[in-house]
């Protein structure tokens, strides 16, 4: 049986990582141009979004590790 602390950690982890999954998948799929070609501006914006996703993931991991 997980402790109340661990259970809360699991809930938080799910709540933070799940929305990030949809975002990250969408950004990667678009950048791979599987759903259509991108122009330079679109690519630049998506690359920034991808970098932000990576930063956000790192922040979430650090936050959860610290607990």
């Amino acid at each position, binding site marked *: 049986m997980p402790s109340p602390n*661990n259970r809360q*950690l*699991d809930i*938080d*982890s*799910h709540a*933070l*990582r*799940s*929305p*990030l*999954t*949809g*975002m*990250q*998948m*969408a950004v*990667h*799929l678009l950048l*791979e141009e*599987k*759903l259509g070609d991108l122009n330079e501006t679109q690519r630049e914006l998506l690359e920034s979004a991808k970098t932000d*996703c990576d930063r956000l*993931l790192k922040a979430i991991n650090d936050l*959860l590790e610290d607990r």
Partner: protein
Amino acid sequence: MARCLDPDSGRFPDVFTFFLSGPMDILIIDDESSIRNATRMAVEAEGHYAECASDAQSARMRLKEETFDLLFLDRKLGEDDGIELLKEILEKNPNQLVVIFTAYASIETAVRATQLGAFDYLSKPFTPDQIRGILLKAQKEQKTQTKIKKLESTVTELKTEVSKSAPPVRSQSSDPMMQGALDTLSRAASTPASILILGESGTGKSVIARTIHQNSHLKDKPFITVSCPSLSRELLESELFGHVKGAFTGAVKDTWGKVHAADGGTLFLDEIGELPLEIQPKLLRLLQEREYERLGENKTRQSNVRIITATNRDLKQCVADGTFREDLYYRVNVISVELPPLRARTSDLFEFATDYLQHFSRQIGRNIKGFSDKARDVVMNHRWPGNLRELRNSIERATIMAQGEEIQPTDLPTATQVISPAGSSFGGGGSDDGACLPGADCSIEELEAEHIKRVISRVNSLQEAAQILGIDKATLYRKRKKLEMA
């Protein structure tokens, strides 16, 4: 198209891996719509079929209705526990491939899932590349499972062969016309060309179609048969292309058709001449564009099938009559062969009869060595309008009826003993066992007695026999008395 590393070998996969393995049917079970949609897009971009379920209940329903090659299942489905659903799924189908999505902090959850029988797990947030890695791994696993299934089915086939329930298939011929047909087919088998097999009913068109498949590069892929005349137009269309729930009255769930089942393999359309005109453009499109839609659905799907067709009709005449599309005719008729009727294959006829005799005598545990000379004459002189099918059934009957070590004329069905335009059923002389048959050395009175006796033996009443004989019951009674049969 981006390519990802094979998770096992660490190398880029063979470009033919996908085509050799074929597309998979995948169900994505996740309560987050963004994850469902993005995963579905990643899966479909790789050429697989994907469906989604947003909760455990709808996933259960879909799994009850359909079979899926792979499931992506979220560890936490709102209020529902994905692990509990995993247990439920694997209890019903231990071979089901399930990949768990987990966002949990600890690795224990994932380990527990794999211990319970999950195929793999993905930690959130994942990427399309990771999804592709899983798809490749699943295809490999599926291939292994297919091999196991194939081995199991080979064992079953061998068991069946041992029990001698199926007569042998003779794939060689000493008949020049048949030799020509077999030669053409052996050259065409390994190509993707559509093949049209023509021939009378019972000439072995279905057996030849299966032989083509087994001698082709697709031999390890499915061989699916659709019999065109056996279903109504709507049911045939659904049988071929599948349908979605509500497409027509009685369509209570989504189904995939035979075109989907045959994907990557061979689709054999028997009696293509009976294919309704309304379905013909759809088949043409499948042949030309490799595209189709399920009934009641707008989504275009792809299927790569090799088509073999057969008919006993004159398809060219059907085109002239307007019952068969000309463009479809040319499409299915890339290679065509005509199987000669059995009566024209005199050099093969007796060999077939002997094969069947050996088969059926083994099957019923009798030691019947062959045919008497007169029985051989009957076999050789009958016109066999039902071709191989009729021959097989006649020899099966004769094997059961035979009392000695040889098949006698009377062991064969009466129809085979009727004199044919090709010649007498007998070469002359009387019958072996006292039976008098047309053309034999016997009087008209003996012939009449034999005929009456045989008719009476196969009907249920004298009234029925009198009707067949074309006399009234009182005349039959008098004749029986006169011929000392009563």
